[in-house]
């Protein structure tokens, strides 16, 4: 069966994911060492150890994301996080930075290393380099590849691949996007936040909901229409004569129906985005995907997705997997 890798922003979500059938849960510490550094989210070292014990008792794994890029002079925070993850009993760490990968391979050789999507390793040469140099055992592929490209990559590498199947969609090659830095001075790569809440202001106005990020209006959503996150790449902007979603529509990824094709393409694990979401969401989505991977493993038809209402824009896309980029 394909491995289901599920998000947990809090200990309660971790337990909800495990109880709902997650094979593995990924989470991070409550600081800038991970790319979901949101208010009120994430784990202290003690909470992580308890969460891992809970998961292991029930046969699930815990992967710890340390997937931001350490600041020069501030590396000790990331080094300490690696040591804390190992002593808490993490099954793997998910890393993006070359220096941190090297440090982990040298100082924590027995701690399994996965390459984060933030590293944007999108071809066999890059992946083989990470595998040979740092002993990376699994690569989370960036969300810019088609299923055919994933198959081609898997033919030329010896490590496992993990792909996103559901949730918020980062439409650029991960780790390379500077939109959030440009607008707010804070980025997913350095601070673990894209379009951070600290810079978001919503206001209900006569023409609907206005969402601002720093000095920029990202959306005006008329009454009754689904509201999106105030994410820069999914904003509605005026450029020249045109007003519209210049980069990408505010929809989120749902690749449920591509699970058989991804399995055939050699993918080991399916990842669900959403560490910022509630335990109710995590339980619902994990339950649904567990049923889907079980059906796939048994050669049965996949259950029809009923998760669109939970998604941003309340609409799903298969993203780049079946590419129709404009």
């Amino acid at each position, binding site marked *: 069966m394909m491995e289901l890798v599920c998000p947990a*922003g*809090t*200990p*309660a*979500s971790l337990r*909800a994911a*495990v*109880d*709902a*059938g997650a094979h593995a849960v990924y989470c991070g510490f409550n600081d800038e060492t991970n790319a979901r550094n*949101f*208010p*009120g*989210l994430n784990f202290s070292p003690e909470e992580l150890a308890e969460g891992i014990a809970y998961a292991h008792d*029930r046969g699930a794994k815990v992967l710890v994301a340390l997937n931001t890029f350490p600041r020069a002079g501030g590396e000790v925070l990331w080094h300490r996080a690696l040591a804390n993850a190992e002593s808490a009993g993490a099954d793997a760490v998910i890393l993006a930075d070359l220096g941190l990968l090297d440090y982990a391979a040298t100082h924590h050789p027995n701690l399994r290393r996965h390459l984060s999507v933030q590293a944007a390793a999108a071809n066999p040469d890059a992946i083989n380099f990470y595998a040979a140099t740092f002993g990376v055992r699994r690569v989370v592929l960036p969300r810019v590849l088609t299923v055919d490209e994933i198959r081609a990559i898997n033919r030329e590498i010896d490590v496992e691949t993990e792909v996103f199947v559901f949730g918020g969609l980062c439409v650029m090659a991960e780790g390379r996007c500077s939109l959030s830095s440009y607008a707010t001075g804070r980025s997913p790569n350095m601070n673990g936040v894209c379009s951070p*809440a*600290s810079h*978001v*202001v*919503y*206001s*209900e106005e006569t023409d609907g*909901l206005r969402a601002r990020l720093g000095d920029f209006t990202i959306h005006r*959503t008329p*009454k*009754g*229409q*689904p*509201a*999106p*996150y105030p994410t820069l790449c999914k904003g509605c902007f005026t450029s020249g004569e045109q007003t519209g979603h210049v980069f990408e529509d505010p929809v989120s990824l749902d690749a449920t129906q591509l699970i058989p094709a991804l399995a055939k393409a050699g993918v080991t694990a399916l990842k669900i985005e959403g560490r*910022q*979401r*509630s*335990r*109710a*969401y995590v*339980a*619902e989505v*994990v*339950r649904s995907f*567990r049923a889907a991977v079980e059906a796939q493993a048994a050669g049965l038809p996949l259950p029809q997705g*009923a998760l669109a*209402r*939970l*998604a*941003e*824009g*309340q609409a799903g896309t298969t993203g780049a997997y079946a590419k129709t980029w404009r």
Partner: protein
Amino acid sequence: MTLDGTELPRCPRAIALAMRPLPLPVLGVALTQFARRVTDSHPGLLRRLGPYAQRTVLIDPTDLPFAFWLDPEAGPRISAHRRHRAPAADARIAGPVAALIGMLHGRFDGDALFFSRDLTIEGDTEAVLALRNALDDAELDLSEELIRLSGPAGALLRRLLAGVERVSGLPLHRDDRNGGFA
């Protein structure tokens, strides 16, 4: 909209009308006492809120006759106000009482309620997110907390709350469904 795609229940008008004459200062004191008992028995809640406990939030259940001003750091402290006379707060979160309690009880997802426009956020977005995430992690069951604090009257209260939940459709208890794979 709820997780299973159905419309959110509204607080029945009869209940909202019956609440109208409640004296606001007394309501505030009772809610403050209740909130303090809850945070005493869930110390992780304020810990998770961290520095965001300093931010005040106006919680505005749009189908009830009042709004609640919450200062987490002051104990916490809650005061009740008529909607148009509520004091300023760092942030405001508004929606039907079912959305607010349902989120607290792990029945609904806050982001999904925001996407569907059932929930409105204004002001300090960080404060709202921190509060929502800390409450989500606390796995509260407000009815059970109330029953626990009611001593010998608890059994009667349990029956009463179950009746109100059945008739109104309001999510008055935590969702304890297990995925079945554990």
